[in-house]
């Protein structure tokens, strides 16, 4: 513990009482940069066995998610710690950290690792204060050699029809859709699909479906991202013809994500010259001016993440609740909750949903009044279900529409899609009718939870709840 004790050891001979107190206060304020640094941790659900549910592979560009970090006061240094393992211990990738507002970014290699490990990415920036949004994105390395070959029959939209090359597929077959993290390379010039300006086209394989029914073909379906080129098509839409060409499969580095932490610190205040503070009454005022921002900017957050198992963000079907728990240790700290997130709709059922935020006590009772924003113009994000994607639509919700959480990629998005989400904000309080109980060890009535509901299916990301 380095906090300076206020006693006679800090006083100089003949100083007035206010002087040595002021000097000690200045010394305290000048150590806040090291002793009250901020840390935001984003923790993603695991399987019952402790394996990561978020599995993150991206072949063609870097894709990821937005996290909102309450960086404190005038933060200049950031260390982003990613806790992960890779599915293939020999293949990793590269991870990027980008400040949404200023655009600066840093990147780092992600080495392959069979066991959970972490990498630190250090960033130095100009002073940032309050809640800041960062895009954390990842691009996979690709295996140097193909893992095998399939015979391609045809394709349409995000489906490639295939059969085994030889007697077997270069992967183990299972029932229904199952997840893959591969790259498939077409060479149209070697086969008989329509011509393409590109001699070699690459698509990420997110899933495979093995058709075992008698009405096949196609024998197998590779679900790819992005959708196949249609103008001109690189594959015919025929599912019954003889195989037209062969395509190689490569393995992608795949991140299995457990958590992301961001630790921030800021420069020493420094401007209060401790030895002279008692001679400069204006410096006392300066101390006050530095304590005040620390009051608000260093207030702990109540929540940092809403996440559905397997997703970087939260899939919120209409009528269901997204929740987060919080408790407060000081009664001043619950005057106001500031909730913010971005939202997109992934179905066409309602383009302008009502979105509601509320607080519940330990018995599920409503605390104060719920807040509803009506007719919110939430943009709709179209997944890969169409042959011809509409201009401006995004594909980062791949897999959600099928309701199958075994698909790869899921909700990793490029920055241009991340920017499409509607920014939703709620300010709950400050004059609530019911006092929030303070929580301490053994308390059985002081953990509350926030609840978010909507009248349409939403996908929520970039969530933060700040206590004011």
């Amino acid at each position, binding site marked *: 513990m380095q906090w*300076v004790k206020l006693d006679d050891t800090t006083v100089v001979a003949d100083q007035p009482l206010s002087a040595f107190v*002021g000097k000690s206060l200045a010394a305290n304020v000048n150590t806040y940069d090291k002793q009250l640094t901020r840390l935001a941790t984003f*923790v993603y659900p695991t399987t019952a066995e402790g394996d990561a549910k978020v599995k993150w592979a991206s072949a063609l560009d870097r894709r990821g998610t937005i996290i909102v970090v309450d960086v404190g006061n005038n933060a200049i240094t950031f260390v982003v710690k990613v806790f992960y393992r890779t599915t293939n211990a020999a293949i990793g990738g590269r991870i990027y950290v980008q400040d949404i507002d200023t655009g600066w970014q840093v990147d780092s290699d992600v080495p392959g690792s069979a066991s959970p490990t972490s990498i630190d990415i250090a960033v130095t920036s100009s002073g940032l204060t309050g809640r800041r949004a960062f895009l954390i994105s990842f691009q996979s390395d690709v295996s140097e050699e193909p893992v095998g070959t399939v015979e391609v029959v045809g394709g349409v939209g995000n489906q490639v029809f295939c059969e085994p090359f030889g007697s077997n597929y270069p992967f183990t077959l299972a029932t229904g859709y199952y997840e893959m993290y591969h790259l498939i390379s077409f060479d149209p010039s070697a086969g008989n699909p329509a011509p393409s300006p590109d001699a070699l086209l690459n698509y990420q394989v997110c899933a495979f479906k093995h058709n075992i029914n008698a009405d096949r073909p196609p024998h197998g379906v590779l679900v790819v991202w992005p959708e196949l080129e249609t103008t001109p098509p690189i594959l015919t839409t025929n599912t019954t013809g003889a195989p037209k060409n062969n395509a190689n499969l490569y393995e992608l580095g795949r991140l299995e994500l457990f958590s992301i932490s961001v630790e921030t610190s800021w420069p020493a205040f420094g401007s209060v010259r401790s030895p002279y503070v008692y001679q400069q009454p204006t410096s*006392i005022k300066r101390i006050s001016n530095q304590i005040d921002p620390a009051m608000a900017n260093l207030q702990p957050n109540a929540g940092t993440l809403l996440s559905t198992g397997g997703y970087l963000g939260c899939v919120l079907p209409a009528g269901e609740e997204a929740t987060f728990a919080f408790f407060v240790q000081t009664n001043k700290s619950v005057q106001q909750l500031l909730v913010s997130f971005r939202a997109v709709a992934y179905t066409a059922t309602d383009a302008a949903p009502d979105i509601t935020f509320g607080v519940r006590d330990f018995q599920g009772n409503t605390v104060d009044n719920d807040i509803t924003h009506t007719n919110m113009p939430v943009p709709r994000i179209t997944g890969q279900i169409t042959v011809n994607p509409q201009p401006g639509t995004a594909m980062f919700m791949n897999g959600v529409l099928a309701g199958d959480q075994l698909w790869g990629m899921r909700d990793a998005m490029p920055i241009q899609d991340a920017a499409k989400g509607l920014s939703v904000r709620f300010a709950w309080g400050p004059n609530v009718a019911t006092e929030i109980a303070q929580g301490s060890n053994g308390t*059985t009535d002081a953990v509350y939870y926030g609840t978010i509901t909507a009248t349409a299916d939403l996908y929520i990301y970039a969530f933060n709840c700040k206590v004011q």
Partner: protein
Amino acid sequence: MSFAVPDIEPAAPVGLIAGDWIQASSMRSLVLRDRFVFATRRRLIASLPKVVTTASASYQVAYGFQAKMLPTANGIMLIGVTASDDCNVRVITSYGTTALTTGGMGCIIDQITGIPPSTWFGITVEVKSNTGSPVTIYGINMQEQILTAADLP
């Protein structure tokens, strides 16, 4: 000289003006505000999203991650959970383990002590239902315990 950590955020001092003398009440207010900031601005260790248990009476892993306390932490991590019915949440670290039981629809706060400050450590969170049916855990909140006067030098 000793001061308690105020329970409520002290009001800002008023009337500070240039001069060699500062009113004692203003200086005391500054001291208390400084104490309040230092003692209460602790870290949120993690805010874990909603999880629904299985019906099984056996623990199942829900989260595994790394965290770090402030260099001035007192080594105590408070864990709060609120759930729709009776369930257990077990939090495991290399410095201690605790199991929280809600006992029905409700909440509880427990703690793990002895965590070294400013050191990354691993946390595993396991959950199980005590009802034979799936239980919704609305969230799990972990914070550094705020400091008391006894923690301060």
